[in-house]
């Protein structure tokens, strides 16, 4: 299971990576915005994408749309982990094809729950 973690704050990437390691996911890579994430996704067999929304350069929602528009990546499970909490934004992300949405600040349990739920659905 190869996971890409995209957030412009390195501390948040580190926190998510540590939580993922606790859950048994050790194969993780990082990117600091959509512009660096997209080529990484296109180049290397990722199974899962966790992304923030508000980032300089390319935002998370644009990254999500780009992923869904890319034939090879279209079915990649995407979890959004973000402080953006307007209803219309959550609806926008849902319409763009997000698989899960976690609002910051979040707990380890919430992250685990959402990741498990996504994999259940992907496998089921």
């Amino acid at each position, binding site marked *: 299971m190869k996971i890409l973690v995209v957030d412009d704050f390195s*501390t948040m990437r*580190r926190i998510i990576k*540590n939580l993922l390691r606790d859950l048994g996911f050790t194969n993780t890579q990082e990117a600091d915005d959509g512009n660096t994430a997209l080529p990484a996704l296109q180049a290397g067999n990722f199974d899962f994408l966790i992304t923030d929304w*508000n980032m300089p350069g390319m935002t998370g929602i644009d990254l999500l749309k780009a992923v869904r528009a890319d034939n090879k990546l279209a079915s990649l499970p995407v979890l959004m982990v973000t*402080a953006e*909490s307007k209803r*219309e934004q*959550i*609806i926008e992300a849902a319409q763009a094809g997000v698989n899960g949405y976690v609002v910051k600040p*979040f707990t380890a349990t919430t992250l685990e729950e959402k990741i498990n739920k996504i994999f259940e659905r992907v496998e089921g």
Partner: protein
Amino acid sequence: MDAAERLEKARLLVTQLESGDDEAAEITLDQIAIKKEPDLFQEVGRLTRELHEAINGFLLDQRIAELAERDIPDASERLNYVIEMTEDSANRTLEAVEESLPIADEVKEKADRLAEQWQLFRTRQLSVDEFRILSEELNQFFTQLTEHVGVINGNLSQVLMAQDFQDLTGQIIRQVITLVHDVEEKLVQLVRISGAQLPDKQQHAEKLEGPVVPGVDQGDVVAGQDDVDDLLSSLGF
């Protein structure tokens, strides 16, 4: 023009209108208006002067120049420093935790294994040779334990010390809040001079609002993860 004079002119005007003397009525009307005009001019003059003084007073306000040229750039620097300090603290904390976690895992793993062996010994299931090995392992474990706990202790102290930013960033942010209040005051003065009206609050859908702040209206936001889950399940997730 006093009240008696005004009344007299009005009566005259009514009489002239009733008698159909339009020309005379026109003259009387003009007389009334001309008497009124100097008052109007005076009033406009006074307002213009007041506005001029208010704008000049505003332009000459030293505090505004200070705000624009020094305090606001300073505030940006200060807030950048806050970001730096909190980031540094988060990194120091994460480092300490990332170093401690595998050590704690290792200690637990070894302790579990030794406890198992120890249980076998207590139920007399170990041979003398096996016990000798266990005894040696226990010895090593105790030595390592002292070393490991020392490292974890050091890291916990590092986590503790990494919280020192709170006091400093708190002070810096409080200074910036004072500055924001000053700017607000000046802006209110400016709005008062210009008499601008606040249009209805517009929500910019494209603008990213960031974290929800208690007490700040950010539009239609969710109250937490449960709300997000409810919203998504209502959309068929």
